[in-house]
């Protein structure tokens, strides 16, 4: 990745970046709806992080659109929260009433998830995955969980490659006769069946592969415990950054709860 945020102490910084990002997300989640001044401060934090990361605003904001589906999930809030009505319209036999507190809740959820996704994107784009795993371990996350996340990351790419090879093999046999007789490409149910067969095959092969991987791990002494060399100590500057960041987020949270 082409990012240099926190690079001067990058090795030691990742155990700090993960808790800071998590704290940001928790702060956003805990803020009550309609705490606009606190949201502005959170936005300022997120914007500073994005700018300092050197990733570029476009890079982060384009990916931050990932938050859009979560916003859709919050859409019913517009109509289900009780309160003074703003607008009302009929759809067939139902009447939908847009309420003012509903609107506040919806905008709050949308803003908070958008900001959280930005921070998560910066974290993922500026931290090498092994560092992220080390940070999870340093945070005392269950080791088995960290091992599962690590293996998933490792084999995700192998699986995607396998998917591409299977699709390529299908394309290679997707021909057309010299003289057009019937419909080329087969019926839709048949195609669905083929795709289902491909997915099923991938499942079986992944299962087989996981057995082989486990056998290879076990034959090198794996006993359910992932061990690593001790991590380099976290430099004092990073500790200071962590403390300052957590304190700031706590102040934002208090401001939001009080106002």
């Amino acid at each position: 990745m082409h990012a240099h945020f926190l690079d001067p102490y990058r090795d030691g910084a990742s155990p700090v970046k993960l808790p800071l990002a998590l704290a940001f997300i928790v702060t956003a989640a805990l803020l009550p709806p309609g705490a606009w001044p606190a949201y502005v401060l959170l936005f300022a934090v997120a914007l500073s992080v994005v700018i300092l990361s050197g990733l570029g605003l476009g890079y982060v904001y384009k990916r931050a659109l990932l938050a859009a589906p979560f916003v859709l999930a919050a859409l019913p809030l517009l109509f289900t929260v009780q309160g003074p009505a703003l607008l009302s319209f009929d759809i067939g036999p139902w009447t939908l009433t847009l309420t003012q507190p509903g609107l506040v809740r919806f905008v709050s959820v949308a803003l908070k998830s958008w900001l959280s996704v930005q921070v998560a994107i910066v974290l993922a784009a500026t931290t090498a995955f092994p560092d992220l795993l080390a940070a999870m371990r340093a945070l005392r996350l269950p080791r088995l969980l960290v091992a599962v996340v690590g293996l998933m990351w490792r084999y995700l790419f192998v699986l995607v490659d396998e998917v591409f090879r299977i699709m390529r093999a299908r394309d290679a046999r997707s021909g057309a006769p010299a003289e057009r007789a019937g419909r080329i490409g087969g019926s839709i149910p048949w195609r669905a069946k083929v795709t289902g067969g491909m997915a099923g095959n991938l499942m079986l092969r992944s299962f087989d592969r996981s057995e082989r991987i486990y056998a290879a791990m076990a034959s090198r002494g794996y006993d359910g415990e992932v061990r690593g060399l001790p991590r380099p100590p976290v430099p004092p500057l990073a500790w200071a950054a962590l403390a300052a960041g957590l304190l700031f987020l706590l102040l934002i949270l208090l401001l939001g709860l009080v106002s």
Partner: protein
Amino acid sequence: MHHTVEVTRLSFAYPDGHQALRDVTLSIAPGEKVALLGPNGAGKSTLILHLNGILKTQTGSVCVAGLDVNQKNLGRVRAAVGLVFQNPDDQLFSPTVFDDVAFGPIYQGLKEADVRSRVDEALAAVRMTDYRRRVSHHLSTGEKKRIAIATVLSMRPEILVLDEPTAGLDPRARRSLINLIRELPQTMLVATHDIRMVMELFERSVIMDGGQVVADGPSTQILADAALLDAHGLEVY
């Protein structure tokens, strides 16, 4: 007479900038069986993937069975070129052997009776008729290789392109596969590291290295040139 495969000054670079083919020219006459040799990363697979339009031609031209390989001809090109991948597991993606062998004919829109006769014909050609109802997942590597060949034979291709057909096979499975390749009447281009099979089956050999064709001629002559083989990372027998 048109050449069955006519590759002219083909160059190709992958999106990451890696130049995989440089100015490759190759023609194969109908009925000819040609071995494609070269170290890993020489560009053999990249060339093969051009022959039925899986990779789009960047510069130069590719013509197979008298058809220019382009978006318009893609369907007919894929029916004319039977491409068998190195790993049979990629090729066999359906629940049963029958479904896999029937894929090409069904895709082409053939009638059910025709599909069945194509499948029978293809399985008979690889001598696996009894395996019709078997589950691909449970076959041995040698059996999977034969079925993988049947999955393209059912399209009645004019050209067979095989990528490493004997890789990973035990001596008996290898022997029976070599016999099968000898029997098949199609024009063939076979990428392989199995030099002894080349000496046995192929009159003509093409060596690729660094994305270029570095030698093309009678196998007896090429495989006797120890200096040439050594320069391109191939073993001398």
